[in-house]
C-alpha cells in the first residue's frame, strides 16, 4: 500500500509543479490538493526512517501553493500590445473600405 501512495504522491506532485507553471490559474490547486493528500497518506504509512520523502513532497506542495496564490494575486490579466495584430487590423479596415466601394458600385 505504501508503494502505491508513493507512486501517486510523486506523480501528482510532478503534475502540480507542471500545472503551477502553466497559465491555469487556480486549476493547479486540483493536482496540488491530490498530491498533498497522497503525501499525507504516505507519511502516515511510513516508518520513522522513511518519513523524509513524504515531508519533502509536502514541502514542495506548500511552496507551489504559495507560488500559485502569488500568481493569482499579483499577476494581472492583461493584453500585450501586439504590433502585428494592430497592423493587420489597419489593413483589414483599408481592404473593407475598398470592398464597400465595390459593393456600392455593383448596386448602382
Amino acid at each position, binding site marked *: 500500500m505504501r508503494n502505491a501512495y508513493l507512486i501517486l504522491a510523486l506523480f501528482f506532485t510532478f503534475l502540480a509543479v507542471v500545472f503551477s507553471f502553466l497559465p491555469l490559474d487556480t*486549476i493547479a490547486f486540483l493536482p496540488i490538493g491530490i498530491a498533498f493528500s497522497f503525501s499525507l497518506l504516505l507519511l502516515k504509512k511510513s516508518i520513522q526512517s522513511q518519513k523524509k520523502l513524504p515531508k519533502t513532497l509536502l514541502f514542495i506542495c506548500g511552496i507551489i501553493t504559495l507560488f500559485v496564490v502569488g500568481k493569482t494575486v499579483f*499577476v494581472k490579466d492583461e493584453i500585450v500590445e501586439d504590433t502585428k495584430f494592430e497592423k493587420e487590423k489597419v489593413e483589414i*479596415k483599408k481592404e473593407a473600405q475598398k*470592398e464597400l466601394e465595390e459593393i456600392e458600385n455593383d448596386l448602382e
Partner: protein
Amino acid sequence: MARLHYYLNIFIFLLVSTSVNGQLIKSGEKLVFAGSYNMSGLMTQLAQVTLSTENVTTAKNTYLHLSCELSTYSKWDSFFKIRDIYESYVNPQTLRPSLYKRNIDEGGWTKKEKYVFKGNTVNSTSKRKNSLETQKTFTIGGSTQDVVSLLYKVRTIDLSKLTVGQTQSLMIVFDEKQIPVTLKFMGKETISAGNLGKKECYKLSIGAKTDALKGKDKNLIWLTADQKKIPVLLQFSIPVGTGKLTLTSATGI
C-alpha cells in the same frame, strides 16, 4: 485546440447575439469584457473581448463599423495565442449589414470569411489555413443580420414591454447559413456591471437552432435595464463546457 476554437466561436456568437438600444447606436462606444471558461470546475480567465463602434466613410456613404475583437491574455499567448476579429459594416440608421468579415487566428489556425450583403442575397467567401477558398451564394430574409450587427440590433428592441417568458424571434447568418435565434425574457436582476457599478438588468435566455448551444435557459445574457441596454454579463453552456463574459469597462456609451 478544437475545443477552444469551438468555445470561442460560441462565445462570439452569444456575445454578438445580444445587444440592445431604443436609440441609434453611437459611434465611439467601447465595451470591454473578461472572458472566462470553466476548466475542471474552476472558472479560468482566458481572453479579453472588445466591442467597439466607429464611423467609416466611403466616397458615397457613411457606415457604422461594428467590431468585436478577441485576444487571449498575455499569460496564455505563449501556449495558445488567439487574435480574432469579427466585424460588420452597417447602415447607421437601420443597422442593416453591407459587409461582414471574420478573421480568426487561433493558435496558428486561421480562417477568413467575408459576407457581402446585396439585398436578400449574400455572397460569402471562406478561406481556411492550407485550404482553397470556397464561395457560396444564398438568400436571406429581409431582416436577417450577421452575428455582430445582431448584437446591436437587439439593443434597439424595447424590452421594457416584455413579460416574463415572452419571446422574440430573430435571424442571423453564421457559418454560411441562416439560423433562427430566439430571445426569451427571464425578468430583471441587479448585477455588477464593471465601471458602471451595480445595475438593474434585463435577463434574457438565448436559444438557437444549432447543436452549438446546450441546455434550456442555460445561455443567458444580462442587459442594463435602461435605454442603452449595455450587455453586462453573459453565461453560456455548450457541449464542451460552460463559461462567461463579464463587462469590465464601458466607455463612449
